[in-house]
């Protein structure tokens, strides 16, 4: 589903984002991407939805080489990828329903069954009853659920979470992560960046650890140790 082949990313002024990343993520997998701030987690995720392009190497999403996509094709790639951010990025002047419907409206999809699809997505994250509320009337956890519903309403094949629990208390973080797990169980591949070791320990899934732009560990159901430096064991 997701494939990184010898991927490096160097930002201007020679700032290293990622170095020589080789990574395969299968369909329906759940992967935590962990590491300290600046380790390259966000860069790795941005390469998937082509917010960034690799300096060298190739990133394949469902077989598409994202760096080689023409700018006109990028929107069509993104319709297959849902992204959830730490700061949620809801539209403050639109209701919960309209925030979620926004995805379908701007991609010109499903106009006939838009309402049904939106309610379905809200139901999936357990907030269908909040559909008429405005974002400022919601708690942080509820806002993040709206963010997840917005990412999922287009029925993406990959769901990306860029520290989606970063601003939430531990209990709410666990609830949000359970939602991600539920979504993953329905078949969606999930790639989530976090530096919350408790979550990684609680929800034992595959963990890819990054340090200074390199993969230093990649293993299933590992307990996450945030104390650097981690001993590199090869990337697989």
């Amino acid at each position: 589903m997701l494939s990184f082949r010898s991927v490096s990313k160097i930002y201007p002024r020679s700032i290293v984002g990622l170095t020589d990343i080789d990574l395969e993520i299968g369909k329906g997998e759940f992967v935590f991407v962990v590491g300290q701030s600046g380790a390259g987690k966000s860069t790795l995720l941005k390469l998937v939805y082509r917010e960034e392009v690799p300096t060298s190497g190739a990133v394949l999403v469902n077989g598409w080489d994202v760096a080689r996509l023409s700018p006109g094709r990028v929107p069509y790639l993104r319709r297959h990828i849902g992204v959830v951010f730490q700061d949620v990025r809801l539209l403050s002047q639109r209701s919960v329903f309209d925030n979620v419907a926004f995805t379908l409206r701007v991609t010109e999809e499903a106009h006939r069954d838009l309402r049904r699809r939106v309610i379905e997505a809200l139901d999936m994250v357990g907030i269908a009853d909040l559909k008429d509320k405005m974002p400022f009337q919601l708690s942080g956890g509820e806002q993040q659920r709206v963010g997840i519903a917005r990412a999922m309403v287009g029925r993406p094949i990959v769901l990306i979470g860029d520290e989606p629990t970063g601003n939430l208390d531990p209990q709410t973080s666990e609830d949000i992560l359970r939602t991600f797990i539920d979504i993953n169980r329905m078949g969606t591949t999930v790639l989530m960046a976090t530096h919350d070791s408790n979550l990684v320990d609680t929800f034992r899934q595959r963990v890819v650890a990054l340090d200074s732009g390199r993969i230093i560990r990649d293993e299933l159901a590992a307990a996450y140790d945030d104390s650097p430096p981690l001993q590199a064991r090869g990337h697989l």
Partner: protein
Amino acid sequence: MRLSSWSFYWSEAGRNISRNAVLALASVSSTAVSLLVFGLFIALSMNVAAVTSALEGQVGIQAFISDQVGATALQTMEKEIASWPNVKSVSYIPKGTALKNLVKDFGSQGNFFTPLSKDNPLLNAFFVKAKSPDEVPAVANHLKRLSGVSNVSYQAPVVDRLFKLVTVVRLVGLGIGILLALGTLLIIQNAIRLGIFARRREIQIMRLVGATDGFIHWPFLLEGMIFGVLGGAVSAAIIAGVYRLYTHVIRTSLPFIPSVAESQIDHLVVPAVVLFGLLLGYLGSHLSLRRVRV
């Protein structure tokens, strides 16, 4: 592109306009002002051209004949002039007809000349047309040398000057129009850029969830075109009104000056102004979108 997308574009454009109402008003007014100047210059140059072409049709030489010349001599003179190789036509205008024409030209104020009919001070004349405007001076000199001709006059220099005036009016109009259009472009561009800035979060999300460039751009393009069309409509209404006032004044006070019909202005200048507004609005938005690389 779906119909529902268009309803989205329109509602987004409307939302932008109502959010930045003051800026929208500034854009519409500045578009209206520059299109007003543009339209008025077109109308003015059309009228000067009408006067010129009317005068051009009248370019001819008037040879005034002294009253001492008798009817037979007049006929001989007419035949002689008509035989000259550079003369296209000759017509005889008796002084009675000349006075009637004068009264007619002055319309309601023509009665002023009525007392003159008893003792007509005008002279009989030949109205001579040369084969080409270049030959007018030669024919005039030839006429002056005929006996019985008391005076010769022709309007070629006036026409020449009017032609130059048309060119000047068009150039000045074009220059001012271009300057104002550039100013309007800048204002529309800035209004759209502020709209883009205000909606940067939405645009970011639209990009993220897979909206195409066209989908993101259309509301802004529509917004610019709305500014342009509204500005164009305001200026078109003013042009149509002002022109009616002008023709009313001209027809009552200076009826001998030809003017372009209102319908011609309505059918030509008004749509041109609205269309130009639409174009300016589109271009302003387009440049703005390119500049901020939305």
